[in-house]
């Protein structure tokens, strides 16, 4: 989810401190990074793979690779993008191997936790959105979720997905367009 600028800047600062400490061997600091990024990475991988176990394995693997390769992480660059790139590489390698059976989306959508100011869709629309996102082509879905949930720039998305900035922009464009095609009539019906 995107954050307000000041909050985002503060997180970046915290992240830099944590990364720096972790690079010096502070495991607590790395554990804090795991706490900070696990949910986002796991969510993204779940949406990309549609498979809980695969998403968990890939997320875990990405963190372990990151821990082992922390020395090679360049201070000042985006740790989140680096971590997601490691995870995406693992996903690509896994996808080349044995194809896993796809897990269907849960039928029931759990009630989300959200703040009072946020506009939240009805349960029915959220289900439609879930299916629509699930049916996006994987490349579009991966790029779109990195933009919307992780707030990565198009350049950073390109870095994660091994593509150009323009292609990243195009994938997000197409994903939004497809979602609008599916969701807009649904949302119109619910307009007061």
């Amino acid at each position: 989810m995107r954050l307000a600028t000041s909050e985002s800047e503060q997180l970046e600062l915290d992240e830099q401190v944590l990364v720096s400490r972790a690079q010096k061997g502070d495991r607590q600091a790395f554990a804090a990074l795991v706490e900070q990024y696990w949910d986002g990475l796991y969510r993204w991988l779940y949406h990309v793979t549609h498979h809980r176990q695969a998403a968990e394995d890939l997320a875990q693997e990405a963190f372990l690779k990151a821990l082992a390769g922390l020395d090679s992480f360049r201070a000042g660059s985006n740790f989140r993008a680096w971590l997601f790139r490691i995870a995406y590489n693992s996903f690509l390698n896994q996808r080349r191997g044995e194809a896993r059976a796809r897990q269907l989306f849960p039928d029931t959508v759990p009630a989300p936790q959200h703040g009072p100011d946020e506009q939240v869709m009805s349960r029915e629309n959220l289900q439609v959105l879930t299916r629509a996102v699930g049916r996006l082509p994987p490349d579009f879905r991966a790029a779109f979720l990195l933009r919307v949930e992780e707030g990565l720039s198009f350049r950073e998305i390109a870095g994660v997905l091994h593509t150009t900035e323009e292609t990243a922009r195009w994938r997000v464009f197409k994903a939004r367009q497809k979602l609008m095609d599916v969701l807009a009539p649904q949302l119109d019906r619910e307009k007061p």
Partner: protein
Amino acid sequence: MNCKEIKYFLLGCENPDRPPADVKAHLAVCHSCQDWQNRLALIEMNVPFLPVPASATRAQLLRKVLIQPRLVGADDLSAVAAAESLTETRVAIKDTVAPVSRVIEPKSPIVLTIGRSSSRRGAGLLHFFRDLEPSARRYAAGGLAAAILLVIFGWMVIRTPHRPPTPGSQLARSSSDPLLASIVERDLRLAGAERPSTRFLALADLADDLSGEVKKLAPLPEAKGVLDELVKRYQKVVRHGLLEIAQELSAKDRDELLNTVGERLHVAGRTADELGEQLGAKIPNSSRDALRRLTKAAFEGDRQLRDLRVQTFQQEPGNIRSPDGSALVRRDNP
């Protein structure tokens, strides 16, 4: 800007909820666009609420991070992470989490072979490398080493009777060159593959790696011989590897795999063609020729896989071609 342009802009910008002044000005007076923007914002705002099953793995990971003094195999993973940090090349590591807890075994014979082959290069070859720029030297060395390896494995990779992989060989991945690492990994997969579909996909990956290497080396005039060798290998992998194994695929696998791999070949061909166009006169004729040959082999491979898919489809009871012959349709869903 008109309404259509505004919508296109919003779809392609980083923050549709924070448009620039000129877009804002339009939105202020156009209720239709304003509604449209609100719907887009509503969709994006709700994406974080999409349901995801709970995961219990984080706790396990935290325990590992905090308790385990040093992760076994960390050197291995470190190399991977370093490669991901320094380059954007995909490093082929097949296993997921399991290898982290395994004890690293002695290098497999394959890895040792790579080491020996690199230490026995002739003096002439050394002169060749010495004359190159450092960056060119790295590419040329990688490409040449890959070519040597491919010569050794070449047909063996495609034709080898399947033998089960040894536990040690599963961990053979010490090469610092991504192409070499990926070739070793493909070879292991091919050697251990029982099913034609697995061999087919491993060869498709190998073809992708080779085409990627050709594209990387194409701008370097010094890489002429290496390029030639890589393209020849690419042609062999496509013509004699992929197309032959495709015949062995089960009808069930064919529909999906032929399409997927055909598309990959098409993309490889198209990007090689575009690169040739883009670099134009900046690259030597030999590089342009290599790209052209690669494009041709890739397109031809794609065409033949498509033909095979059509044949398979037509043989299935109940399936027919659409009237214009351009698409395949199922009888129950014309």
